[in-house]
C-alpha cells in the first residue's frame, strides 16, 4: 500500500515534492500544540490548485487520510498529522490572485500569510480585518479552516465574516465554488458552513476576502488596575457607555511580567491587570468618542492611564499584547493555552475561579484575553520534565473549559476544537447535535479521510487522552514533548 501510494503520487508531483525521509518529516510532526506529535507517512508539497485537487482525489481513491497544513500554527492541534496518512503542505500556494481596490476584495490561495493581504492592500488604503496573534506567519487557508479570530472580533467579527467566496476541493473530490466578489449571497450560506470546518470538509483552494478601508484614526489607551476585577469592571463600564471599541483586551500580572521580559514593554507599576481599549474611525468621530472613553476609564479607578500619543506608542502597546503568548514561554518551559468563552458579565467571576483553581493545583496561570468578547486565554504554565505535570495542567485546562460551558459560554472562541478539545465537545452539544454534525461531515467526506481525529470525540483516530498515556504512546507510535 505504502509504495503504491508513493508511486501514484509521483504521477502528480516530482519526487522532490514528496517527502518521506524522517529528517524531512520531522518539521511537520506537530503544530502550535507542541504537546502532540505524530509522524505522517509522507508530506506532499503541491504548488498549484490542480495538484491539490489531484492529490485529494487520489487520497479518495486510495482511502488515504490527509491533513492540510499551512504554517502549522494551530493551537488546538488542528493540523496534527495522522500516522497512517499524508500531510498536504500548502505554503507554496501563496499567490494573491487578485486585488481589486475598487470592489475592496482580494482573491488569495490558501498558503498566503494573513498579514500579506493587508500589506498588499495597504497602498489602496484598505486592510484585511481578522488579526490573529500569529498573523505574521499563519495562512489564510488555516484561518478559513478554523474561523480564526483576533483582537478586533467584537466590532468586525471573525474570519467567517470576511469570506465572500470559496473554491474548495471536498473530501469527496468534488470541486465547488461558492459566492464570489459580492458581499451579498443567494441561497444558503455555503461559505459560512465551510469556514471553521477544521479541515473536515476539504481544502479551500481560492478564497475571496472582503477588504475594509483602513481606519483613519486610532485612540488606544492602556490602563493599569490594582486588581483584575477592577479591570473587568472597567470593561463593563466601557460596554455600558454605548461605545463600540475596535478592541478591548486584558493582560494579568504574570502576562505583563512575560511581556516586559520579552519585548521590554513597560507597564504601570503595582498593577495586577492592564486593560487595552482601542477606538477607531474618522478623526472627527474618534475626537468625540475618545472623551467619552477617557472619562469612563478615569471613573473606573485606574492606577494609571496611558493613551498612546502617536502611532509608535500604539504599536508598542500592541506589540506587548501580541507577544504575550510567546513571551510566557520565557517564564516556563511548557504551557497550555486555553480558549474558552464566558458571557462578558461573568468575566470577573471566571477569573476569580481560575485564580482559585491555580492555587489549588499549584500551577501558575497567566491570563491574556479578549475581554470585549469574553474570550479567555488562560496560559497554564508547567514543566513537562516534572512527573505528571502535563497531566495536572491538562486537568486544570479541562476544569476551566467545563466552567466556561457551565457559565453558558463556549469551549473555544477562536482556536477551534482540533485534537485538544474534542473530548469536551459533548459538554456543549447533545448526542443528537453531535450526530447532526457528523452527518454533515459524512456528506462532505464520506470516507472520513479529511483531517480525521479532529473535532469529534471517540475512537476515530489515535490521539492522546487527557488521562495518562495513550496505548499508542506506550507502543511508541505517538509521543508528546
Amino acid at each position: 500500500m505504502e509504495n503504491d501510494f508513493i508511486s501514484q503520487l509521483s504521477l502528480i508531483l516530482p519526487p522532490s515534492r514528496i517527502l518521506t525521509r524522517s529528517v524531512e518529516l520531522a518539521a511537520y510532526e506537530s503544530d502550535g500544540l507542541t504537546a502532540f506529535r505524530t509522524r505522517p507517512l509522507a508530506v506532499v508539497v503541491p504548488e498549484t490548485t490542480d495538484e491539490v485537487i489531484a492529490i485529494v482525489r487520489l487520497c479518495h481513491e486510495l482511502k488515504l487520510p490527509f491533513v492540510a497544513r499551512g504554517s502549522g500554527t494551530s493551537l488546538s492541534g488542528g493540523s496534527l498529522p495522522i500516522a497512517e496518512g499524508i500531510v498536504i503542505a500548502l505554503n507554496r500556494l501563496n499567490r494573491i490572485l487578485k486585488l481589486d481596490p475598487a470592489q475592496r476584495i482580494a482573491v488569495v490561495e490558501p498558503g498566503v500569510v494573513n498579514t500579506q493581504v493587508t500589506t498588499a492592500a495597504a497602498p489602496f488604503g484598505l486592510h484585511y480585518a481578522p488579526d490573529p496573534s500569529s498573523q505574521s506567519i499563519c495562512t489564510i487557508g488555516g484561518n478559513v479552516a478554523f474561523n480564526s479570530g483576533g483582537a478586533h472580533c467584537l466590532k468586525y467579527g471573525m474570519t467567517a465574516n470576511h469570506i465572500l467566496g470559496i473554491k474548495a476541493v471536498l473530501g469527496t473530490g468534488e470541486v465547488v465554488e461558492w459566492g464570489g466578489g459580492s458581499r451579498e449571497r443567494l441561497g444558503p450560506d455555503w461559505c459560512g458552513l465551510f469556514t471553521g470546518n477544521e479541515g473536515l470538509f476539504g481544502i479551500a483552494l481560492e478564497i475571496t476576502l472582503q477588504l475594509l478601508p483602513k481606519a483613519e484614526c486610532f485612540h488606544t489607551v492602556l490602563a493599569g488596575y490594582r486588581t483584575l476585577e477592577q479591570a473587568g469592571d472597567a470593561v463593563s463600564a466601557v460596554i455600558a457607555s454605548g461605545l463600540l471599541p475596535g478592541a478591548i483586551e486584558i493582560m494579568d500580572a504574570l502576562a505583563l511580567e512575560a511581556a516586559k521580559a520579552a519585548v521590554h514593554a513597560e507597564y504601570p507599576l503595582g498593577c495586577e491587570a492592564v486593560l487595552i481599549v482601542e477606538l477607531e474611525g474618522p478623526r472627527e468621530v474618534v475626537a468625540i468618542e475618545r472623551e467619552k472613553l477617557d472619562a469612563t476609564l478615569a471613573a473606573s479607578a485606574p492606577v494609571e492611564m496611558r493613551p498612546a500619543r502617536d502611532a509608535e506608542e500604539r504599536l508598542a502597546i500592541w506589540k506587548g499584547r501580541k507577544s504575550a503568548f510567546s513571551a510566557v514561554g520565557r517564564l516556563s518551559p511548557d504551557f497550555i493555552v486555553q480558549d474558552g468563552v464566558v458571557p462578558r458579565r461573568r468575566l470577573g467571576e471566571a477569573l476569580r475561579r481560575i485564580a482559585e483553581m491555580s492555587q489549588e493545583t499549584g500551577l501558575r496561570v497567566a491570563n491574556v484575553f479578549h475581554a470585549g468578547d469574553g474570550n479567555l486565554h488562560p496560559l497554564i504554565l508547567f514543566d513537562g520534565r516534572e512527573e505528571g505535570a502535563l497531566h495536572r495542567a491538562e486537568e486544570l485546562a479541562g476544569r476551566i473549559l467545563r466552567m466556561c460551558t457551565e457559565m453558558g459560554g463556549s469551549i473555544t472562541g477562536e482556536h477551534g476544537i482540533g485534537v485538544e478539545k474534542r473530548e469536551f465537545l459533548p459538554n456543549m452539544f447533545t448526542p443528537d447535535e453531535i450526530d447532526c454534525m457528523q452527518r454533515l461531515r459524512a456528506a462532505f467526506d464520506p470516507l472520513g479521510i479529511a483531517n480525521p481525529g479532529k473535532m469529534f470525540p471517540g475512537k476515530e483516530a489515535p490521539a492522546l487522552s487527557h488521562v495518562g498515556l495513550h496505548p499508542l504512546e506506550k507502543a511508541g507510535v505517538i509521543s508528546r514533548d
Partner: protein
Amino acid sequence: MITPSSLPELRDAVLSAPRVIAVGAETKPRLSAVDAVKIFMRQLSGITEYEPSEFTFTALAGTPVKEIIAALAEKGQYLPFDPMLVEAGSTIGGVVASGLSGPGRFRYGGVRDFILGVRFVDGMGRLLRLGGKVVKNAAGFDVPKFLVGSLGRFGVIGEVTFKVFPMRESTLTLQMRFEVERMAHIANSRFEADALDVLPGGETMLVRLAGPGKALEVLAKEIGGEVIDNAIWDEIRETRWNFKSDHTPDQIGDFKAAHVSCGGNVAFSNTPPLRGMALRGDSPLWIGDRPRFVIETAVKQALDPQNRFPTLDD
C-alpha cells in the same frame, strides 16, 4: 392550520405531515410558495433572553422583528444589518431563512454576520441547538450561518441568537448625484459610510453616516450633497420589489430599473435580473443559473433524509 406555540410543538408539527414548510408573516411569499403543508410560526413568538451587557438576544423564530427592534432600542442597541419589511410584519425566523439584509449591511455585514446560534428542527424531527449564545464561538460547524438564506429547505428554525451593537448617537443622510466613481470613492474612504444606495433611475445616490452628530456634520460637508430626512431608509427597508440579485459594483448593468443597495452589491428590481431570486410574484424562485453542486444533495440528505422539507428547486 398548524400553529405551534412551543419548540416541542414545532417538532411535532414537522413530523405531522410528509412535506412541510415554515412560514412567518409571508412578507416574501414566493420563498415559501411550494407544495407543502404550511407551519405557521406566528404563535412561536417572544424574546427568550436579552442581555444588553452581552450584546446578544435570543428570540423564538416567529417573533416580529419590530418587537425586537423596540426591545433593543429601549436599551440603546440595534441590529446593524437593518432588517427589511419590519413594518410589514417580518419575523426574525423569516429574516434568517430569507437571508434578506437591509441597507445597513454595508457597514458591518448582513444577517449572516450577526447570527450566533440557532435551535432548529431537522428533517428527522430532532430539535437541535448549534452555534452558541456568546458573541464569539468557534465550536462545531457553523450551521447557523448555513441556515441564513436556506429558505426552510434544510430545517425549520425555532429560535435564534443574535449579536447586536450599541446604537449610534445619530444618523445623517446625504443625497447626491450618482456616479460610479463617486460611489467607489465614498465606499473606500475614511468616512466609514453606514449605508450607500442608489435610487431607481440611477441618478441619485444616498449616503448614510452614523456616529456623534457633531462629527457627522463635518464629514457631511466634506462629502457634499444635500442633507435629507432619514425617513427615506424606512421606505427602502419596506421594499416592494419582486426580485433580489447579488452583484459586484462593476456588474450592475442597469441602475435605472432597480434599487441598488450596499454600495452596488445588491439590487432589487421588478424586472427579472439575469441571475437572482424572486421574493414575490409567480415567477420561478431562481432566476438564471443557480450554482449546483453534488454536495448540496448530500447536505440535504444529511439534514433531511426523507425530504420532509422541499428542496431548493421545488
